């Protein structure tokens, strides 16, 4: 198993655009969480999904949304991009909520 995979590795967008980031969990893991990591800070919780339902949401505006598919993969969508959305976006999977989270390599988003 390759572990948690994320795509794309990095991308560049301009202000106002939208972006979709993808995450494939470890086989057998049913929970996926998303984090935003701005340079010099620790990861900040955005969403957690378990069995395709939202389990938790962090303090992020409604421009951020996510979903989980029947195969437990997940997408994070960000609309109306701002310069401040530039960050590393991390995905983590776990067997279920409360279990050890395994992190992916992240997607580096740059907003110009």
């Amino acid at each position, binding site marked *: 198993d390759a*572990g*948690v995979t994320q795509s794309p590795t990095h991308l560049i967008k301009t202000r106002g655009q939208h972006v979709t980031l993808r995450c494939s969990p470890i086989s057998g893991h049913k929970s996926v*969480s998303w984090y935003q990591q701005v340079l010099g*800070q*620790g990861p900040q*919780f955005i969403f*957690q999904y378990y069995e395709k339902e939202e389990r938790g949401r*962090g303090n992020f505006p409604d421009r951020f949304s996510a979903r989980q598919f029947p195969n437990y993969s997940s997408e994070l969508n960000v609309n109306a991009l701002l310069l401040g959305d530039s960050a590393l976006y991390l995905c983590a999977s776990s067997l279920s909520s409360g279990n050890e989270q*395994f992190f*992916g390599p992240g997607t580096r988003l740059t907003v110009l």
Partner: protein
Amino acid sequence: AQRVTQPEKLLSVFKGAPVELKCNYSYSGSPELFWYVQYSRQRLQLLLRHISRESIKGFTADLNKGETSFHLKKPFAQEEDSAMYYCALEAHDYKLSFGAGTTVTVRA
């Protein structure tokens, strides 16, 4: 709301010296606390969690509820311990809150 504070951004120690990374938290409930580590060019990974009471790679961490602290310690630092370390707290709603991280450099 929960909060995790790591007061040291950078920590430099000599090989063989003890190392202690400080972590303080605020949370109204009973917390679950973790230390995550990120080695150069690797993914963020779990180092240890307080409920397991294990020693991983020589590191230990004790939860002190009175001082609301969860400091990470190792008696003899090794060069391979050079990495970024994050303290994290999991609240009852499974939200994981991270501190800002401490970069540890172990010098030969």
